[in-house]
């Protein structure tokens, strides 16, 4: 179909670069994997090059690295507290991976892996599982008192406990859907308005200026959202960590 090629959804298509099949499993190296590898390499390069020549007055790379380090360290300190220091490597990795995914997705022609629900969902389910294990290891069976709000009458417990358990189980869904929806909607919007430039430019040059201006504005907005959503995902991870460590 000719129209499908120009659909604003075309950018989300997974294309295998290196087809690999093991048994019934499709383990192909796709464009999604490619951009994940690129972002991991870039993060690795930033951390390694930024910390190689540590100097008193930081250079550009070192300043960028120190900025990201302090950003996450402050976030952990203010949300989780002193006990959160241990989980810094995990939270930092998570933040950088999402941030680089979002930002690299802004390069025209690239692939935004954070706009796929399965990617964000696997990250979210990993976070919630890890947090649950941390909670159980730290508190043992006492962790399950998390689901029973203390101080409420015993006869509402049969209703309250399932709701609390469900609200806990829903966390990975809302966490992943939030990131995925924001990235996907933003990219569709960008493509749609950019498509208007071509559609209108075919007739007259002048009306095409309006969607062009809007696309420029939207690009700025998307850059802001890329940062914001990486931040939101990380802050929520920190809040869940705090809940598991301190149990209210």
């Amino acid at each position, binding site marked *: 179909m000719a129209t499908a090629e120009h659909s604003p959804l075309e950018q989300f298509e997974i294309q295998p670069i290196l087809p690999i099949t093991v048994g019934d499993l499709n383990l192909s190296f796709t464009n999604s994997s490619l951009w994940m590898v690129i972002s991991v390499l870039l993060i690795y390069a930033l951390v390694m090059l930024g910390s190689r020549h540590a100097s008193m007055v930081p250079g550009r790379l070192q300043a960028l690295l120190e900025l990201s380090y302090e950003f996450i360290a402050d976030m952990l300190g203010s949300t989780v507290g002193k006990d959160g220091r241990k989980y810094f490597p995990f939270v930092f990795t998570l933040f950088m991976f999402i941030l680089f995914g979002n930002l690299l997705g802004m390069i025209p022609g690239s692939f935004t892996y954070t706009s796929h629900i399965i990617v964000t969902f696997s990250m979210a389910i990993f976070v919630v599982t890890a947090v649950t294990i941390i909670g159980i290891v730290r508190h043992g069976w006492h962790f399950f008192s998390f689901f029973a709000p203390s101080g409420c009458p015993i006869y509402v417990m049969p209703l309250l406990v399932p709701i609390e358990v*469900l*609200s806990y189980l829903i966390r990975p869904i809302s966490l992943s859907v939030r990131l995925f929806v924001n990235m996907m909607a933003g990219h569709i919007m960008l493509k749609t308005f950019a498509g208007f430039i071509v559609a209108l430019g075919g007739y007259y040059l002048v009306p095409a200026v309006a969607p062009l201006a809007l696309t420029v504005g939207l690009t700025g907005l998307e850059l802001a959202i890329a940062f914001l959503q990486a*931040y*939101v995902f990380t802050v929520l991870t920190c809040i869940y960590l705090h809940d598991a460590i301190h149990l*209210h």
Partner: protein
Amino acid sequence: MAGEDEAPKFKDFDARMRRLRDEAGLSRDEPEPGAGSRPSIGGTGVQVGIELVAGVFGGALIGYGLDRWLDTWPIFFLVMFFLGAAAGMLNAYRHIRRLSNVPEERSKGR
């Protein structure tokens, strides 16, 4: 050569910074978790809406899964649908509380 020569200077620098901070009354203590202002969560209405939708969908999905497993369609689906909606509202409520930086008073009872 940079690594070994710089290390003592850094230590000295840290000590001097600490002294200066203390003199200026800027000593940085670790903030109490939850006591200070939590970083606010960006995006307002949409974020809360996602919480509500995820509640209903998540509840229905879990209920459907339980029904498939235990062959009890549609009991769990119906129960979980409504419980999920309630859980979504609870999550949305907590989200708004966090947004407005109101500390949670869950343990005190209502």
